[in-house]
């Protein structure tokens, strides 16, 4: 606020010409873009409350109130979809939240520069592989007959595993392949936070005779706690918002009972079967719940730790 008032008096001085209109001109294109591609679809949400027909258009269609929401929350097939989304989201969070932190702590403890650089370069790389390639690689390498993983399993005398044909394995495949791809990249932010840990504190701990493990527990982790909390808030709100990119590629008829989540359900019901109202309601349910999660977790974090997003 102080900055603003200071600036106002400077502008009032009149020595510097007011160029507001030029800024408006520069930002006009991005604003038009955001209005068309973000705000108009937001207005389209009213489809969720209407019996949408292409002939009558969005505004002309009849209101149906909360019919689609009630349908989504009570019908047997969509309750299963909600359960799947939650199960997969919670599994993902439990695994993919702590692992990057552990990885970053490990990287931070390495003193050999070359080894450190190598670990960082290699672990960040899979993040840049396309999701289609990732799923394709999994299918190739886990093939029941020709996949290298089953070849290796048989070499050490174990039975081959039908990875993509086993419902029970689906969630683990999804979550752990995600770890393979993104754990390194997600660790960057913690590595950066760890490099900012106070050197004096570290040295004081050494003088006091702390072991390396004790220094991690009592110096490093408390120092990066604010970053950890911010990331925790984000990952909690992601529990319900599993994107369809990867899961849609991994789906097959065998794993459908556990792999159908809200986003793939919205795609199939809405885009493929053109049931616009119902699927918009399902999608809206997902984004509202995820937004509420963000607000709730953020409030809890602010109460108990003074760290929050806003």
């Amino acid at each position, binding site marked *: 606020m102080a900055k603003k008032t200071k*600036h106002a008096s400077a*502008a009032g001085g009149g020595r*510097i010409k007011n*160029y*507001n209109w*030029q800024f*408006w001109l*520069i*930002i006009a*294109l991005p*604003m038009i873009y*955001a209005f*068309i*591609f*973000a705000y*108009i*679809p937001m207005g*389209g949400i009213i*489809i969720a409350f209407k019996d949408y027909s292409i002939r009558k258009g969005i505004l002309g269609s009849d209101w149906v109130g909360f019919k689609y929401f009630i349908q989504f929350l009570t019908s047997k097939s969509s309750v299963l979809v909600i359960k799947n989304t939650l199960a997969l989201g919670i599994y993902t969070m439990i695994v993919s939240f702590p692992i990057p932190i552990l990885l970053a702590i*490990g*990287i931070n*403890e390495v*003193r050999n520069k070359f080894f450190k650089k*190598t670990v960082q*370069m*290699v*672990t*960040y790389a899979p993040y*840049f*592989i*396309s*999701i*289609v*390639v990732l*799923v*394709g*690689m999994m*299918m*190739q390498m886990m093939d029941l*007959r*020709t996949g*290298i993983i089953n070849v290796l399993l048989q070499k050490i005398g174990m039975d081959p595993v039908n990875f993509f044909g086993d419902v029970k394995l689906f969630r683990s495949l999804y979550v752990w392949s995600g770890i393979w791809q993104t754990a390194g990249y997600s660790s960057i932010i913690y590595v950066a936070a760890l490099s900012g840990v106070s050197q004096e504190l570290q040295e004081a701990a*050494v003088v006091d005779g702390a*072991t*390396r*493990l004790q220094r991690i527990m009592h110096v490093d982790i408390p120092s990066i706690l604010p970053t950890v909390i*911010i990331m925790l808030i984000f990952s909690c709100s992601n529990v319900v918002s599993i994107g*369809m*990119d990867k899961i849609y590629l991994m789906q097959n008829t065998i794993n459908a009972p556990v792999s159908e989540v809200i*986003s793939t359900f*919205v795609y199939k019901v809405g*885009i493929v079967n053109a049931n*616009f109202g119902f*699927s*918009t309601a399902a*999608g*809206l349910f997902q*984004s509202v719940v995820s*937004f509420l999660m*963000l607000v709730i977790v953020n409030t809890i974090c602010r109460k108990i730790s003074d760290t929050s997003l806003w």
Partner: protein
Amino acid sequence: MKQAKFRNMTLGDKIFTLIIYTMLSLILVVILYPLIYIVSASFSDPQAVISGEVLLFPVRPTLKGYIAVLQNKKILTGFTNSLFYLVVGTIINLVMTMLCAYPLSRREFTARGWISKFFVFTMYFSGGMVPAYILVNRLHMINTRWVMLIPMAMSTYNMIICRTYIVNTIPDELYEASQIDGCTPFKYMMRVVVPLSKPILAVLTLYYGVGRWNDYYTAMMYLNDDRLMPITMVMREILIMGKVDMTKVQDATAAAKLQGMSELLKYSTIVVACVPVMLLYPLIQKHLVKGVMVGSVKG
């Protein structure tokens, strides 16, 4: 900090250090092995691939897989389409991001407070899949190249990274000095802000470029013309739906040979599709940490 030499450590610290190095080495193997295996398999003899002879290095090296890739029209079209979407799309992204980030970085711009909120809100809430689809449909963009370029013209998250960078690294005095010299905000952007933002533009090129190259979702939603498909959709067909166009290898007699070739083609396609990203990666890897750090600063 001066770290104690390994031999001067206590026994407990020695064990701890060994555990860390072992764990990280294991992680390296787990990440690298699949990548090396894919490359090796793509250069191996088809029979060796399906019989599981390839373990780490190529067996009876050949270029058959890559020749098959070159002969496959769909893959070639997909590759050129993807290159087009990558280059044009990323340029659009960078221009839009700069046009948005620069005015929002200037205190002189009186409306920047509420315009910032206008953009930030779109990060937390969106209309969802179906309204977006109806919009694109109304704009007559379905099955055109535009749909691969325009609907994702800017990411608000990247725009904020860019704005934070401009605010934190370009000194305000420069703006005042340029004003006194008669420089307009537009000229200032072109002559000062853009040249001084090269490091962040490099990071954003990587983010946007990888996103463009790897995107299959947009194409799946809005395209159904084979001539417009990006490489990711062609790969989805070949790798995941298991459809390989075998017309080009009709002369191969044995069915096993066909199957071997189709497996080989899959591995080679994966490698070919990863080449552009892997060429970009080492160039920009050193900027990655900076990008993530700028992004994590609340602005």
